[in-house]
């Protein structure tokens, strides 16, 4: 089968004496011996234990406040109002109050959260057009059929941004107020930009090139998604640079969550304000909510989360605990293996034939 070489002589067909062909390549043959496995297990158990403890301390040092406002307080009325789709255009606002017992130090992040909202359904996830949100002019008015039935309205007017994802964008808005013990109320300033991945804001999402046109003019000939109250070019009335496809709320929403319960970043405490230089002081707070997003349809809940972070992220106890559990499992296995080795395998007793 091998190539015949142009050798001649009595040993013309003798195979080469290379280590590869003779299967004699130098190699390392590791084995599971007591000398390697047992120390490794004990070491690993210790490492996991230390890691677990350290992470646990880290996570414990963060603070988190969760509020489910679906039907909390006077939001109950809005909840009932949103039951009926025909009232969608009707505004509704409510207020929830809470207090912070221990000040949240450092950067404070404000999230909104949804439960039982399946952003990970295949047909839902497919229902978007990245070409359109990339600002491609041709696609802007001719969105992909993947967006159907949210690609065009019944008059054939293209929807921008198209698709079920954009259409279902979360549209509650919040304003947080700090009630000083003196009775004075101070609005808590939230940064509403810098919420997205750099790549999303600068590469993945772009507005169509304006060429001296205003954003509204560029989007002329398209219409906002059916459920939207405002067109995409005026999502943020305060910051003209946060409009169109690069609106950060839109970008955050368009990064679909992996699981049906998720939270998304709404704003970051602006610590430039002297009242909140060190974070959120303890005291009473209230959130005024413009209650728009209906959750009854999917039997969901919605809420807000205020949290501080470490380099490790937010308050998720899973990893530290998992490391501690793993550490004890390894230790248990190590002990069992040691016993087995001591009783049976030591001195190679069982290896004798």
């Amino acid at each position, binding site marked *: 089968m*091998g190539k015949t070489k142009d050798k001649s002589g009595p040993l013309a067909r003798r*195979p080469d*004496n290379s280590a590869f062909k003779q299967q004699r390549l130098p190699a390392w043959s590791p084995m599971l011996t007591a000398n390697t496995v047992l120390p490794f297990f004990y070491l690993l158990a210790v490492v996991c234990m230390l890691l677990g403890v350290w992470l646990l301390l880290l996570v414990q040092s963060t603070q988190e406040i969760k509020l489910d406002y679906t039907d909390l307080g006077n939001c109950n009325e809005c909840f009932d109002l949103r039951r009926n789709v025909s009232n969608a255009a009707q505004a509704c606002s409510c207020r929830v109050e809470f207090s912070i017992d221990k000040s949240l130090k450092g950067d404070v992040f404000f999230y909104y959260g949804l439960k039982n909202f*399946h952003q990970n359904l295949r047909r839902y996830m497919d229902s978007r057009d990245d070409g359109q949100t990339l600002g491609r002019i041709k696609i802007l008015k001719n969105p992909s059929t993947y967006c159907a039935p949210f690609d065009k309205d019944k008059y054939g007017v293209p929807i921008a941004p198209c698709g079920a994802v954009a259409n279902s964008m979360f549209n509650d808005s919040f304003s947080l107020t700090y009630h000083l013990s003196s009775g004075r109320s101070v609005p808590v300033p939230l940064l509403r930009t810098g919420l997205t991945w750099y790549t999303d804001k600068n590469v993945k999402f772009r507005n169509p090139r304006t060429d001296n046109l205003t954003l509204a003019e560029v989007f002329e000939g398209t219409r906002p998604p059916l459920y939207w109250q405002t067109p995409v070019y005026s999502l943020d009335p305060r910051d003209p640079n946060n409009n169109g496809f690069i609106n950060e709320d839109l970008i955050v929403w368009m990064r679909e969550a*992996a699981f049906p319960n998720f939270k998304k970043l709404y704003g970051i405490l602006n610590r430039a304000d002297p009242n909140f230089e060190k974070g959120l002081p303890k005291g009473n707070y209230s959130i005024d909510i413009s209650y728009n997003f209906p959750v009854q349809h999917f039997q969901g809940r919605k809420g807000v989360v205020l949290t501080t972070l470490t380099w490790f992220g937010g308050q998720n106890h899973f990893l530290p605990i998992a490391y501690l559990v*793993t550490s004890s499992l390894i230790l248990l296995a190590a002990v*069992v*293996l040691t016993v*087995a080795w001591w009783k049976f*395998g030591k001195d190679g007793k069982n290896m004798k034939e």
Partner: protein
Amino acid sequence: MLICFSYDFPNISGVFLIRIFLNFNFLQTNAIKTSKYNFFTFLPLNLFEQFQRIANAYFLVLLVLQLIPEISSLSWFTTVVPLALVLTVTAAKDATDDIFSFQADLLLLSSSEPLNLVYIETAELDGETNLKVKQALPVTGDLGDDIEKLADFNGKNQRWCIYSITSTLLFALILQIFGSLVFMCTILAIGNYIWEVKNGSNFTVFLQREDSAGFSAFLTFWSYIIILNTVVPISLYVSVEIIRLGNSFYIDWDRKMYYSRSDTPAEARTTTLNEELGQIKYVFSDKTGTLTQNIMIFNKCSINGKSYGEIRRLNAGFKPKTHKDPVDFSFNALADPRFVFYDHTLVEAVKLENPEVHAFFRLLALCHTVMAEEKKEGELHYQAQSPDEGALVTAARNFGFVFRSRTPDSISIVEMGNQRSYELLAILDFNNVRKRMSVIVRSPEGKLSLYCKGADTIIYERLHQSCSKLMDVTTDHLNEFAGEGLRTLALAYKDLDEEYFSRWRERHHEASTSLEDKESKLDELYEEIEKDLLLLGATAIEDKLQDGVPQTIEQLAKADIKIWVLTGDKQETAENIGYSCNLLREEMKDVFVVLGHSPEDVRQELRNAQNAMKPDGAANSLLLTEEKSENLLKDEEANGEYGLVINGHSLAYALESSMELDFLRTACLCKAVICCRVTPLQKAQVVELVKKYKKAVTLAIGDGANDVSMIKAAHIGVGISGQEGMQAVLSSDYSFAQFRFLQRLLLVHGRWSYLRMCKFLRYFFYKNFTFTFVHFWFAFFCGFSAQTVYDEWFITLYNLMYTALPVLGMSLFDQDVNDVWSFQHPQLYIPGQLNLYFSKTAFFKCAVHSCYSSLVLFFIPYAALQDTVRGDGKDVADYQSFALLTQTCLLFAVSIQLGLEMSYWTAVNTFFVLGSLAMYFAVTFTMYSNGMFLIFPSAFPFIGSARNSLNQPNVWLTIILTSILCVLPVVTCRFLLIQLCPTINDKVRQAKATPPPPPRRSRIRRTSSRRSGYAFSHAQGYGDLVTSGRFLRRPAVPRASGFPQVGRAATGFSPMGRSAGYSPTGRPQNLKVPDVEVTSLQMYRTFSDGAP
């Protein structure tokens, strides 16, 4: 006139094209077209054929499913890229095969000759110049030359049998996998139905759906079929082929299976059977030319009470201990230069004109039925009936008694340079009962003498009393010779009285012309004259074993491989070789010899043997286990070591359907089985019998055309190459030059191939099941919507790029212990025979392991990412980050698992494993880069995911945690198993810490009192022919002539990936094999030729 079809088999696709060609007058050309494709037809034809393969068709269906938007859960490229790659590789292979195919297979339909025979010269194919006899199938042969009938003839396509145990298992497993695939998809479809009813209907505000929940479930089923199809990835087939090819190349490249004397490397002629080499349970071996070199050497002799012969060791392969100069025969111009003798005293005795020595060699020169050919002056060429005779006559020739020529009534010899012509008065021929032959000659001086040679016991009975002293001495010598495994003959002579002889001659003439009872009358006459003989001495001939045969057989026996020798030789010869090659041993409790001449006798002998070996043995009916409508004979253990020798005529009864189980049971209880005097057809029948009732892999090894049937019948056929004939090699799967290479082929290459293939399959299923099951768990979180867990590019490249090379590297390089240790502990071979490494249990374990790993790989990232954000508060719990995290965890977990599987880390393996991981990151970062997204926004939506999530410590902590949890139970279990119940492999690997002992070259010496067989062989002698004068100048007909259906030509079946699917004793041939009449003269051949 010859009517033929030419046809080719594409690999295993089962399609074949039939073309009619040949020499009818109205057809213009009789050129044989052997290639299937030309430049233009290649692509369409090849694609057409490939899509007929069930696997490829399956993937085509998947591709079509993906084109339906409602179903498509993956982009088209996830299937197209692998499919295209597989098709390209296969097409390339087919093209190469087509270009290099040179053999036209002819299907012989009919012939004008009687019995539908044709004679074929195959010199261009196999170098054998004689004519080979082939016979057409009776069913087509009966149609004669009626073209219309032939054209209408509808041949039944034989079912393709995949007999290979691994392949059968694999096939069954793949069916099961498909079953579980459908099962999983059904569960998920039901889940989808429930979800749609409970949740989905509420969600329609955000995601409109016109279909009913039932229809949605239906579509989901197909969507999941697409997603989960990776349980049986198409690349499995390609990888298996590559591994088999690689392991075949190792066989070709092995220097230790290269025979320098004939410049013959080993050759793997098929690439599909390597792993079965590691599972061989039965080896069927030919004797002559396979175990022995078929070279008879005049080794020693005893003349008048003096023993001659050098003190050389018997097994001459290893260097003789004593280096003596061979005797110089230059004094004799007619000496055969190839003849070597080391004892100078004998030639001195000849030169000193010792009368006994002269008589001894005169007898050898006169008393035989050899014929001489002298093409050029002084260049003698002997044609002997048996190599033994040739050896004796050649010995006489070199010692100065040159047999030169014969006529029906004279023999010319050159005695010490003097030409003398003896008148040949009678040949008292050899037969099985007489066990001797004699000639009566008149010397030129007119002296009448009878020269007799034969079995020592027979000769001794007929000696004159005066020899009794000489007898004792000679008996000692004979025992000595026999103990060394030499074949002995005693020689005797007597001078005859002229008057007595003339009377005897008249009576002889009467008897030989009488019509009644001729044989017994002749026997009486012979008996009468062959008495009062004077003992001359004895010869000892070595039937030279090939080098290392006893050691090989011992090794194979230790590996629990049963060796059956199937030989055409007669019983004594075969038994003798059995002893000298260590197959039969003195220590054996008993060696049963079955010689019965009637069915009852044979059955009784077999039963007796069974009872002796297994006194409490159950009745036969209980021994069969029904397994899938197949009857299998259980393996049994005898109460000691036994051997069985069965003769051809008894075997014929034993192979009858009423007795075959008795025979098989007896034979399987024995350590060694020798079947002697068997026909080629019987050889194949024995193999078929074992295949039929034993779930075991069989291997047949042989060198000649008469072994072809056996070689084809066995699962694996091995041909001894480098000899004159090529037929055995051409029909074999593996070929090499020496029998001793068999142990390397099985214990090293076979074992490694099997191990590698099993490791490969186990790991391959593990990695794909794990990959796929994660989707299953995710379904419960994504509303059973057939959303994938991973990025589509990852799904496309997982099998092709990220995990292909590491597992290939393992399957090409892995060795649990090296070859020295494999030889040291042949027991390492046993797990393969029991198919322990890849059984249903192993597969089930592998599935459970995957299930565990997939749970870890889904739920750990799920819990770790759920509700988590990056260190800067931004999103990391999004789908894309989760997909990236899970696929990275998966890749790490399967790579580490591979590392655990691998017991032989070469630099290449390290490079492949690390390279694949590096490749993964390189490709991932490229696919997720800005540039790719800006070119194809819809194909690369994962832009930035890698940069934004892989810089997070908690992502890496998750990866480490999943890796630890995936590996932890595996290491724990393996370590515990090694400690508590170590396998033979563990023990050997443990012992390996010490340097391997030097390879043993223990010489097996037999000290035996057994009297060795006498040096006649085969059938009735040819004295009649020699004296009849009918013999000269007729072309020799080959030894294959007794068996007309040997070549592939006659059977019209060329199994390319043949897993012994071919059965030469199968239906048509079995019906009736009219023997081609063998005239006695055809049995003559030059004795350099291999014997049957």
